[in-house]
């Protein structure tokens, strides 16, 4: 049992939407849970939340009830088939963003009161809206998900740059998603790392690849978590490697 202070709060962010952020967060959480860790995923995508859909669950209480109502975060936690806990969000509530902005400090305090978790993964929305930045700031470590698309690379770099320029963050992890080979992932990472070193003056950390697999799209359609359904697939192997690098990392104290 960990106290809240020892919990590793990590945010998954991307800049561009549709790079597989939610896929990464659910599978990474499931992988860490399979290794016996207590993991909580918070769906922070307030505009278009969809973890619940990915997992095929229908939440009764969501983050909305914490922001609008007077529920504590722990009241809306629900277990999932992946072995990790989830705080779902509600889709399509536009006023949420502004309200959350005002309540973000309270939410942070609540999060620190959630005892017993080894890892809390914050699945942020796409883009670099203030709320996304605030969630990233709330996390101790920011993981930026990129894929082979040029725009994802640019948007990921924009995210890193904004977090650095606005909040002085200097340590970021990169996960290269949906790559054909390990080499392709390495070369994509090298691109963004080179630019970061050159223009921002610090290196990025590569947490690893998640390689393409034919079973992934079907698995998502069936609302399954691939790493649970196919623990021996290369996707599962990739996630184990990513999880290992993440857990072993040295994180700045906030």
């Amino acid at each position, binding site marked *: 049992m960990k106290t809240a202070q020892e919990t590793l709060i990590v945010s998954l962010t991307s800049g561009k939407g549709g790079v597989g952020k939610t896929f990464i967060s659910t599978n990474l959480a499931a992988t860490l849970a399979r290794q016996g860790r207590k993991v909580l995923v918070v769906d922070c995508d307030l505009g278009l939340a969809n973890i619940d859909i990915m997992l095929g669950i229908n939440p009764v209480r969501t983050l909305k009830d914490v922001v609008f109502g007077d529920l504590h975060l722990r009241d809306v936690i629900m277990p999932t088939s992946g072995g990790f806990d989830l705080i779902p969000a509600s889709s399509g509530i536009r006023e949420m963003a*502004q309200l959350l902005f005002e309540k973000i400090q309270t939410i942070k305090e609540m999060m620190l009161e959630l005892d017993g978790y080894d890892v809390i993964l914050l699945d942020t929305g796409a*883009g670099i809206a203030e709320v996304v*930045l605030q969630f990233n700031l709330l996390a101790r470590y920011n993981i930026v998900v990129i894929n082979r698309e*040029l725009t994802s*690379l640019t948007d990921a770099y924009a995210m890193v740059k904004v977090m650095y320029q606005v909040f002085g963050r200097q340590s970021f992890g990169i996960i290269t998603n949906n790559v054909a080979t390990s080499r392709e992932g390495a070369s994509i990472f090298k*691109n963004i790392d*080179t*630019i970061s070193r050159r223009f921002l003056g610090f290196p990025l950390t590569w947490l690893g690849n998640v390689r393409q697999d034919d079973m992934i799209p079907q698995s998502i359609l069936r609302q399954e978590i691939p790493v649970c359904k196919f623990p021996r697939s290369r996707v599962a192997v990739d996630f184990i490697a990513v999880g290992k690098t993440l857990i072993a990392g040295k994180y700045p104290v906030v």
Partner: protein
Amino acid sequence: MKAVKKTARLTSPTPPLTLENIFKKAGSKPKAAPEQKNQQAEYILIASEAVSAALRAKLLPHGLSFKLKDDLLQRLIQLEKENRHLKSLSVTDELTGVYNKRFFSRQLAVEIVRTKRTGEPFCLIFIDLDNFKIVNDTLGHAKGDEFLVKMCRQINLNIRPTDFACRFGGDEFAIILPATSLMDGVKIARRWHELFLQVAKEMNLPVSSSIGVDQFSASSQQNAQEFLHQVDQLLYDAKRTGKGKIAHPDIDIPDSKAVTREEKELLYHIFQPSGHKQHLRKKDKGKN
């Protein structure tokens, strides 16, 4: 090398008495060139004692030299000093030492022009103290003034060297943040908010601050008055919805600006090595 250089154009048709006096007291006549004989003197140069003799000779090509202990010169220097002091008085607030409203209006006009020219936005923070009237009414104006002085001392200690803090009078203040985006402006406003709370806490007063922040962008069509009104409205909103608040428009982070063209190009060209070469060639051509 520090020279107090004062250039004064004498417009009266005859050389004024003072100039002649200076010449007489200095004990030397102006060795003017023949064609200049009938022309009136146009400039007076005052060199302070820090200026070397050699430089003084250079500054005065006609060989004029003044004795610096000269009474009249001393008076001139003194007057100049006083003039500067008066100038500073005319732009600072008497009680707190921050700039006054007159300076504010002038600087605001400057910043608007600067923003239009350079394209860089600036921010304006309006501050109104909460419960300040209660302090004045119950504990006396001396206590209120003491708070204002302490607060402004903190402002002067902590303000970014490029920002301007101004007192509008009473418990109203404004801070101009040149070349600052709204995002940074809000951050800085929060910092001031905390700092004022701290000062109030130290003095054990129930004072907090309501703040309105907004940015003036290069694309804005507003004039100074309209912009002031807009920020004032924000401050009013902050006050109305409960004290101790910071009101600002929604912040949109310019994502297209976040990544510069140069960075983007490099990101793309690393991706496509052939494009990189083309890019270089283009650049070379541009230089020639």
